[in-house]
Every structure is written in C-alpha cells, then in structure tokens.
C-alpha cells in the first residue's frame, strides 16, 4: 500500500525538478529557499502590520479619526516593510515559475522598482519624520525597541534586493538557463476571479503561518485551554500548508500527472480541513471564553467590533480552498 502511494504520488518521474540539470538545478533550489524565507518574512511583517492596522481601525470605529491618522503616520514604515517584503516574494515567485524570459523580465523590472520604491520611501520618510519631530528619537521604541531604526535598516537591505532584481532583469536575463512552464495558463475570463481567490488564499496563508507559529509562544496551554490552543494552531497552519503543497508539490508535477493528482489531493485536503474545522468548533464549545482568555493576541482584527468572525474565517478558509479546487477539478474531469 505504502509503496503504491509512493509510486503514484512521489515517483521522481512525475516531477519537473529532476529533469533540470547542473546550474538550473542549483538555481531552482536557491530560488525555492529564497521563496520560503521571503514568505516567512512576509508572514511576520504581515502580522506586525495587522497589529498596527487593527489599532487604527479601532480608533476609527470608536470615533477618534485624529488618533487613527496620527497612528498611521507614525506606523507607515511598518506597512511599507510588509509591502517591500511581499513584492520580493512576488519577484521570487516570478523567478521560480518563469514561464518565459520576456515574462520574467517584465515581472522582475516591475517588482524590482516597487521594492526599491517602498524601501526608498521608508528611509526618506523616517528621516523626514525625525526632522519634523514625528519620531522623538531614531530608536524611539514600539512596536520594537529599535523602531523606526529597524525599519530603516530593513529598508536598506531591500533597496539592495530591489536593485538586484532590476540589474538582473537588465543584464543577466538571457543567461537564465531554464524555463518552467509548469502552470497551466488561466483563461482571460477567469483571470480576475482566479487572482482574487489566490490573493485571499495567500493573505490567509501569510496570516496563518505567523499566527500558527505565534500560537506556540503566546497561548496559555494551561488552565484547561490546551485542546483549544492545539486546534487553533492547526487551523492557522492549514492555509500555509495547503499553499506549500500547491506550490511545491502540485505545481511541480508534470502536466499529465497534475490531472491525475488533483482529485485525490483535494479530497484529502477537504477531509483534513473539515476535520480540523469540526474539532476547532468542538474545542471552542468546551471553552467559550478561550479565544479572549487564552490567546487573544492571535486575533488582531477581531477586536474592533468584538466579533468572532476573524477566528471563523481562519478556520473556514482552508475548507473553502478545498471546495473551490474540488469543484474546479470535478468540472475539468467531466469535460474530459
């Protein structure tokens, strides 16, 4: 049985990667590592940004727009830090799935300029803020001890990253030895819906990854909340796990093997996410105060209207992803 599964799902012959040779193989591995590191960084900067954002939303809904504006102006580098990181992930993604040298060139130029711009604006903005008195010190503190100095140092690094992408696109693009046409083209009609779906999935995956990791550090696993804590961690980690499988397993399969793998994969995902969602709600039913008493910090956006919806969205999203892909797969199968 095990052998059959291994043969069907993990046979080397099914994948694109083993067909690469020499330098292309090394490049592919390096970019994959870069993509994972970038995604993790984007995930944590996203969570950090959500903290600032949630407080600003709180001020707005409570009728203190002046406080919200002042807070936004102070925390703008936190927002820019996420954007420069996220655009780096997009650039690395373009590398990883470069469909053609022309598309890669376009993507690297576009994303490289965006990264450099976000990073450059951050540096100038902090310097201007110091001169204007918005920041009382270069390391004024909050959200970190070194803020906004840490944002400036991070931005300097990303200026280099952005410039690297631009230079690479201009000078070395022709030397890239491999092209990976591993993702089927999306028809024009469906492109909008596809992009919206994938964007939301990515955002939930970013939120879920850092949230899932934070769970282990900030949850009160004592006081009878352990079951709830474990289920929350699993619920959070499902979205990034599905994304990981999609990008590094499904999209790595050869065209003809992908069709075969789709239904078993999605059925498995549906079962896992359904089970996790059911257990999550059971754990909540056993401790109705758990979200706010055991690890309220996990729900930055949940506070403003005292709603439970953010928690539910996190749990339900992997389920929605599975259902959508399942429906898509079934339709594709019926069409032959």
């Amino acid at each position, binding site marked *: 049985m095990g052998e059959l599964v291994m043969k069907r799902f993990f046979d080397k012959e099914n994948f694109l990667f083993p067909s690469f040779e020499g330098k292309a193989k090394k490049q592919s591995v390096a970019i994959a590592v870069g993509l994972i590191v970038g995604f993790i960084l984007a995930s944590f900067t996203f969570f950090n940004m959500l903290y600032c954002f949630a407080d600003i939303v709180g001020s707005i809904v409570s009728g*203190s727009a002046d406080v919200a504006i002042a807070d936004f102006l102070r925390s703008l580098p936190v927002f820019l830090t996420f954007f420069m990181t996220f655009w780096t992930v997009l650039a690395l993604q373009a590398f990883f799935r470069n469909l053609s040298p022309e598309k890669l060139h376009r993507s690297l130029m576009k994303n490289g300029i965006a990264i450099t711009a976000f990073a450059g604006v951050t540096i100038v903005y902090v310097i201007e803020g110091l001169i204007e008195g918005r920041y009382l010190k270069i390391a004024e503190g909050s959200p970190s001890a070194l803020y906004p100095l840490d944002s400036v140092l991070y931005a300097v690094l990303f200026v280099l990253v952005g410039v690297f992408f631009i230079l690479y696109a201009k000078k070395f693009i022709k030397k890239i030895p491999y092209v990976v046409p591993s993702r089927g083209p999306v028809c024009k009609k469906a492109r909008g819906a596809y992009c919206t779906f994938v964007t939301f999935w990515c955002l939930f995956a970013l939120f879920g990854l850092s949230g899932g990791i934070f769970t282990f550090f900030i949850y009160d696993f*004592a006081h009878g909340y352990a*079951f709830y804590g474990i289920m929350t961690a699993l619920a959070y980690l499902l979205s990034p796990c599905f994304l990981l499988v999609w990008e590094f397993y499904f999209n790595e399969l050869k065209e003809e093997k992908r069709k075969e793998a789709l239904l078993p994969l999605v059925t498995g995902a549906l079962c896992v996410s359904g089970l996790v969602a059911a257990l999550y709600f059971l754990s909540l039913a056993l401790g109705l105060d758990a979200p*706010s008493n055991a690890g*309220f*910090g996990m729900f930055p956006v949940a*506070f403003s209207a005292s709603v439970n919806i953010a928690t539910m969205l996190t749990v339900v999203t992997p389920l929605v992803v599975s259902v959508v892909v399942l429906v898509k797969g079934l339709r594709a199968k019926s069409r032959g």
Partner: protein
Amino acid sequence: MKTKFLLALTSLSALTLTGCNSPFHYEEHLADYCHALRYRDGFNILQLTDIHWNANTSTIASKRYLDKVFAATATRIGSGNKIDLVEVTGDQFMLANTYHVTTFLEYFEAKAQEYGFSYAVIWGNHDRHGLYNPNWLSDQFNKAAHCIYNDLEDDLYGRSNFIINLTEDGTTSGATKWQIANLDSGASFSETAVSPFRDYDYIRKDQTQWWLKEHALVGDTVPTIAYYHIPQQDNLEAWNAIHNNNKTYKHKFFKLEGFADNGNREYASDFIAEGRKHHLKAAFMGHAHNVDWTVDYDGVVIGLGVKTGPELYYAHVSTEDKDPAVQEGYASIDFKEIFDLIGASMVTLHDGEAFDLQHLYLNERATGDFVKWVNW
C-alpha cells in the same frame, strides 16, 4: 504495539482536554489572596485606566504624559503628603508585545521609587490581546518589586483577583481600616461555538462569593472599595433610573458613549447588589473611554475613572456641542472650556467610612497644558 499507541494517544488527549494542572479551591486559600498596606487618614489612591500601550504607541510620548499626571497629582495633594497607591485598572496594553510590557513595568518601578507608592495591576479585556503568553504577563507583574498582584492556580474565575487590606500596622494580621478589592472582570466570550459575536465578560458569581469571604475575614463592617475593568449592568441601571424614572441619585461627570457592559440580563453580575449589603462603599472601573460618569447608586458610588492618555480613542468635549449628554456633563462640573476627556482619578480615604473623589483632566497643549481637578 497498536494498543500501546492507542493508550498513549488516549492519555494525551485526556491530558489535553483537561489541562495539566489541578487548581486549588479558592476557599481553602483565602489568606493567599491578601496583601496589606499601612493605613493613614488621607490615604491617596490614584486610578489610572485604559492606558492602552499598543503597536502604534510612542512610549516616550506616553511616559511624558504619565509624568505630568504624577506631577499634577503630587502638586494637588501638597508637600508632606503622598500618593499611597496607584490602581492601574485594566487595558494597560492592547495589540502590544513584550517590549511594551517590560518598558511599562520599568517605568512604573521608577515612578514608584520616585513617589514612594505601590501600584496594583488589574487585567482588562485587552491585556490579553498581545503577542505574549498571558502567564508570562502575570509573571512580570509578580516579579515587579512595587507591584501588588496575584494570579493563583485556583478555581476562581479570572486572573487578578486579590485583596489589599489597609491595616493599622501595614501587616496582613493588623486591624483592617479599609479594604481594597481587586477583581478581574474578564474579557469576552462566545455564547455558543458558532456565535458571530462575543459578549463582554462580567464579574462571575464565584468572584462575588470569594470577595464576601475575604471581607468576612477582616470583619463585615470594614468599608470596601472595589476596582475592576468592565462596568457591570448597575451603571446602566442607575443611569436609566435617573433619566427614565426620575430617581434623584447624586451623579456627576460625563457619559458620552455606552458603558460597554455585558448588556444581557442572563449574564448580570450580583457583585454590586451583594456589596451593598456588606459595606461596599464604591466601585471604580474603566473600559468605556468616553465615560467618567459617577453615581451614588443606593449607597454604593459607582464610577468610571478618567481614561489615562491619548491612546486608541477619547472624547473631545466642546461647549459648542449641543448633545444633551455633553451639556449634562458640563452642568455637573465647575468650568466651561473645551477639553479632552483624559487624565486620572483620585480617591482619598478617611477615618470612618468617608472618602473624597476627584477627577483630573490633563491635556497636553502646545500653548501650555490644561490641568483641571473636579471634586465629586
């Protein structure tokens, strides 16, 4: 092998579902909740509430504001007198992290040394709302030298439930002149596992019973003041009794938004009702930033402290505002100026069962700070 595995899995699940610790029953450890401070006639308690250090806060600017509150209070009470106790009544943090907590406690420790006070910390709903483990936060409060705090491994609902007995000799065995009850009014909860909304928490019946037992220990006639974070249903009841049923309770200050209490009769607290029978003289809280309305509700003074500092949200109070609630607030105080509803509150305890209450409105302004004290 399979059986062993299943056995291990079942044990792990049972452990997970029940939690690892077995908490003690609070009634068997009543003395463990008690702290003591030396009482004197004119004992000053400064209440700071809803400071809300968060991801967007400039801690330098916030500390500068708190410096001014302490300085204004010291000036008010005069030389030869001092702030004896600072009650920090919840929502010190929100969307904060370990940096905020350590900086906050370093600051309060420095001020405690400078002014010679102890400070008691109570959990608000948002103190759980940060990137730290709640148990870690409790540990930090416990470790701070001048911080009075308890979070015991008990079966009592909430974390910061503790008593400060103000005794003649400053020890827990001395005769108690006043009692300060600190309660954790919780955060929020879902009514069911699939409720889209959460209800604000409330003081549970076991917490009321706990306080009654602590109170009985020092003598049922000892006057008590309670501090907690979330208003209970009594504030709204008193407001409605005055505004809908023409009751003539003494009341003062501003109510510019709802009390943000639980609002559901099913979850009504019995704390004030029971307290009224047992010499509870006053209960002070925070939570709703645009409210510092205070009322003498059938013998118990219930009031929200003035929100401390400009984080998250606060009310701009204007004489131009025709809102009846604003006008009613102005009518109850002795000045007519535009100001922000931020500052602090101070209670001064006297022999017998008397106490004074003052609200401080302190606004930082480029043209010179606005500082006003208003007596209850």
